[in-house]
C-alpha cells in the first residue's frame, strides 16, 4: 500500500506538470482580455500600456516558466515564512492576479472559508440525508418509498440551481422573509446568536446544493446496497440469529460503503472548487465565484492557479479514493 501510494504520488508529478501546461496553453488560446472591464472611455493606447504593465508583452514560454517558478518555488516559501516567521520569500514576486494586483494565493485563502462552510456543509448534509434514503430504498426495493425516492432524486437532478436557487430566494426571502438572500461573508461566528445568524444565511444555499448531491449519492447508495443484500454472507449473518438491524446496518452497510466512500472522496475536490452557479445566486463569493469572475475578467494568473489547484485536488483525491478503497476493503492489496 505504501509503495503504491508513493509510486502514484511520483507519477502524479509529470501528470500535473502536463495538466498545467495544457491549462496554460488553453487559456492562452482562449480569447479575452484583462482590459475588457475597463470602460470604453479609456483609450486603446492606455489599455495597451496597462497590458504591458501586467507582463503580457512577454512570450508564452517565459510566462509559463515564471508561473511555474512562482507557483512551485516561491509560494511554498511564502507558506513556510507564514508558519515559521522566516523570510525566504522576501522580495520575490509571487503569482499576482491581474484584477487585484495582489498575490493570488492570498485571495484563494481568503475565499476558502466561505466555500468550505457552504459547499462543505451541503456535502455533509447531503451525505447525511442520502445514505439513509439509499439504504432504506434498497432494503425496501420497489416499495413506494423507493419509487418516491427515485422520482425525487431525478427531479432534484434535473432542476438547475439557477432556477431552484432563485425559487427558494423568492419563497423564503422575499415572500416569507425568513432568510437573507445575500450571504454576508464578513459575518463572524463568536457566540450562539451569531451562530444562528450564520445558520440562517447558510440554509438556502446549502439546501439547493444538497438537493443535487443527495439525488446522486442516494442512487449510489441504493445500488451498492442492492448489490450486497443478495450476497451469501448476508444469509450467513442471518443464520447466526442476528437481528435485521445488525444484518443490514453492520454487515451489509459496511460492505456497501466501500464504493460509496470512494465516490464521496472523488466528489470532495468539487467542494473546494465551489459551486459556481449557487455561489453566484446567493452571493457567497467563494472559490467558484472567484473562478468565474477571473475567467470573465480574463485574469489568467488567477484562472491558471485555481484550475491547477483544482487539478491537484482531483489527482490527489483520485489517489485518496484508491487508497481508501484499499483500506476499507481488506481484499484489495496494492503493491
Amino acid at each position: 500500500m505504501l509503495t503504491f501510494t508513493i509510486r502514484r504520488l511520483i507519477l502524479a508529478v509529470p501528470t500535473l506538470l502536463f495538466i498545467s501546461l495544457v491549462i496554460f496553453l488553453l487559456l492562452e488560446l482562449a480569447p479575452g482580455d484583462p482590459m475588457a472591464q475597463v470602460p470604453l472611455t479609456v483609450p486603446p493606447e492606455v489599455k495597451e500600456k496597462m497590458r504591458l504593465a501586467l507582463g503580457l508583452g512577454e512570450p508564452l514560454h517565459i510566462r509559463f516558466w515564471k508561473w511555474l517558478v512562482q507557483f512551485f518555488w516561491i509560494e511554498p516559501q511564502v507558506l513556510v515564512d507564514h508558519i515559521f516567521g522566516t523570510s525566504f520569500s522576501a522580495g520575490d514576486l509571487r503569482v499576482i492576479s491581474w484584477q487585484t494586483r495582489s498575490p493570488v494565493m492570498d485571495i484563494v485563502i481568503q475565499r476558502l472559508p466561505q466555500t468550505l462552510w457552504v459547499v462543505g456543509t451541503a456535502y455533509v448534509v447531503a451525505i447525511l440525508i442520502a445514505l439513509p434514503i439509499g439504504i432504506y430504498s434498497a432494503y425496501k426495493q420497489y416499495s413506494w418509498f423507493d419509487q418516491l425516492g427515485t422520482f425525487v432524486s431525478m427531479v432534484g437532478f434535473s432542476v438547475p440551481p439557477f432556477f431552484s436557487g432563485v425559487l427558494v430566494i423568492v419563497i423564503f426571502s422575499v415572500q416569507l422573509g425568513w432568510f437573507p438572500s445575500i450571504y454576508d461573508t464578513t459575518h463572524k461566528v463568536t457566540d450562539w446568536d451569531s451562530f444562528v445568524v450564520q445558520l440562517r444565511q447558510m440554509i438556502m444555499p446549502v439546501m439547493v446544493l444538497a438537493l443535487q448531491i443527495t439525488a446522486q449519492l442516494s442512487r449510489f447508495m441504493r445500488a451498492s446496497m442492492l448489490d450486497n443484500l443478495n450476497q451469501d454472507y448476508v444469509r450467513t449473518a442471518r443464520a447466526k440469529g442476528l437481528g435485521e438491524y445488525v444484518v443490514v446496518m453492520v454487515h451489509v452497510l459496511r460492505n456497501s460503503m466501500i464504493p460509496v466512500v470512494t465516490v464521496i472522496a472523488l466528489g470532495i475536490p468539487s467542494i473546494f472548487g465551489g459551486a459556481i452557479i449557487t455561489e453566484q445566486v446567493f452571493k457567497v463569493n467563494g472559490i467558484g465565484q472567484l473562478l468565474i469572475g477571473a475567467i470573465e475578467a480574463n485574469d489568467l494568473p488567477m484562472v491558471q492557479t485555481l484550475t491547477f489547484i483544482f487539478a491537484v485536488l482531483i489527482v490527489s483525491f483520485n489517489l485518496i479514493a484508491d487508497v481508501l478503497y484499499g483500506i476499507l476493503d481488506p481484499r484489495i492489496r496494492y503493491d
Partner: protein
Amino acid sequence: MLDQPIASIRGLRVEFETKDGPVVGVEDVSFDINPGETVCVVGESGSGKSVSSLSLMRLVEFGGGTIAGGQLLFDRDGSQQDLAKGDAGLMRHIRGNEIGMIFQEPMTALNPVFTVGRQLTEGLRLHKGLDKAAAEARAIELLKEVRIPEAERRMKQYPHELSGGMRQRVVIAMAMACEPRLLIADEPTTALDVTIQAEILALMDRLKRETGTAVMFITHDMAVVAQMADRVVVMYRGNKVEEGPVTEIFANPQHDYTKALLAAVPRLGEMRGKPFPEPMKLLGQEQTEIPPIAGTNEVLLNVENLVTRFPVKGGLLRRTVSNVHAVEDVSFKVFKGQTLSLVGESGCGKSTCGRSILRLVEPLSGKVEFEGRNILGLSPDAMHKQRQDMQMIFQDPFASLNPQMVLQDQVAEPMKNYGLASGSEVMDRVANLFDRVQLPRSFMRRYPHEMSGGQRQRIAIARALALNPKLIVADEAVSALDVSVQAQVLNLMMELQSDLGLSFLFISHDMAVVERVSHQVGVMYLGRLVEIGPRERVFENPAHAYTQALMQAVPIADPTQRKSERDLNFKPIPSPIHPLSYEPDPSEYIEVEPGHFVLTTDSGY
C-alpha cells in the same frame, strides 16, 4: 426425549413470487431428523434441497419465498414447536443458537470486511451473552476444535487471507459456536479440493460424534453421502422420492430416480482391470453401445520441459520482484484418439499448463510440438491458424458462455472467425453440432441462462467442436455439473472421441472421473508432474507419496468403505512464489514400470 425427532418437516411447500407468477421451489416434502443422527439430503441441482433447509431456518423469506404449507416442527424442551408459525424474535433465538448452518460457498459465506474473530464472536455474544474477552476465548477454543493452526492469529485475519479449506472450517466453527442441537450443512464441501473435502468431512463426523448434534447434510455427491450418512433422503423436483438408511439406499434403491442417480456415480476402482476407458451405463436412457476406446499410439502433442511463470510486480518501479512458478519443467505426450488426464489439487498449475499449450498464457520456455510443429515459435497469425486444431472447454459452464449472446451465435462464432462457412451454411453446421451434442435444435435461439448447467456444457463442447479440432483441452469440464449430467457429458465426450478420433487433455481433480475417462494420467503437485503413466498403472500402483495420499483422500461411493480421520495425512501446499534468484532443479524421473514415471527429485511435498 430420544424417541422424539429433533426436527420434523411435514408436507412442506415453498413458493416463490416471480414476474411470471408463482414458482414452486418445494412441493411436498416430509422427513424427520432424530437426535445425534446424520440425515443426508441428496438430489440434483434445483431439486429443492437448499430451499428445504432454508425453510427450516425461515431464511427463504429473505430470498422472496413463502412457506405456503406444511409444518416445521422443532423440538424445544420436549414440546414440538412449529417454526413455520414462529415470530421473528423466536426465529432469531433459534437461528445460530439451536440450529446452526453451514453454507456451500466458503468464499462468499463470510463477510469480507470483518475479521474472522469478529464474525465468530458475534453469535456467541448475542446468544450466550458473553462479554468480548470471554467470547474471544471461546472462539479460539472453537478454532482449535476445528483444527485450525495458529488459532490466535487467525482471529485477527480477514476471510480472504485464509485458504478455502480454512474458511470452511471457520464457517463450521461459527455454526457450532453455540452448540446447536441441529446442524444444517448445505453442500459444505462441494467447492473444495478432494483432500480438503476429506478433512472437512472427517472433522464434521468427529464433531458430530463428540457433541451429539443432529446433522442435516445436503449434497449431490453420492460418495460423500456414503461417507457421512446415517439416513438418506432423496429429492427430485421439489419432492421427496425415497428415504431410508444409507446402506439400504445404496444396496437396494427403490425409486427409479435413485437408481439412475447411483448408476451415474463413477466409483473409484470400478475400472480396475479395464485398460481402456469406456462410457458409463446410464439408466433410463437409450444408449448406443460404445466399445472401449483404444486410441492410437501416434503422438499428437508433445510437451517438453514446459515452464510457465507469472511475474509478481512490486516496488516503486513495478519491477518483477518474484515469480509464481505455476508450471515447472513439465513434459508429457498426448496420443491421437487418447485422453491424458492431469490431476492435482487446486493451484498446482493444471489450468496454467493447459492454457500454456494453447498459448492463452505465454509459457516462459520449453517445447510444445503439435503434429511435429513447435507451437511456441509461431507468429500470432500462424498461431491463430493453429488454434483451429486445438480447442478448449472451460470449467464453469455459467462463466464460459457470454450471457448476452444467443447460443447459435456463440457456436457459430469460431466458424465466422476462421471464415469456414458463410450464410445459411453456418446455421446448418450449427444445427448439426447441436444434434451432435444431443441438444434440440429449438434451443438455438436461447440464451445461456435459459439452459441448465449440463446443457451449457454441451454448448461449450459444440463450440469447441465447431472447428473440427484434433485436440481438446477440457479444463475441469465436468466439475461443476450434477452427477447424472456429468455422466452424460462424460459419455458424450467419449462418444465423440471414439467417433472422431479426438484427443483430450483432461484436467480434473476428481479421481473417479479421471479413472473413468483416461488412457494416461499425470499427477501434478506444485507445478510439477510428480507421476505420469498409463491410468491403470498409476491408479493401481501409485508410486509417489503425494499420489498415494491423494488416492487415500478420495471418498468412495460405498457406505461400507468409510474412511476415518486417521487415514488422512496432508500438509498444506507450500507457496509457488519464489524470488527471482530462485533456480528450480530440473525434474528427473525414474520409470517404475513400462511407461510409468515417478519424480525422484524434490517436488516440495
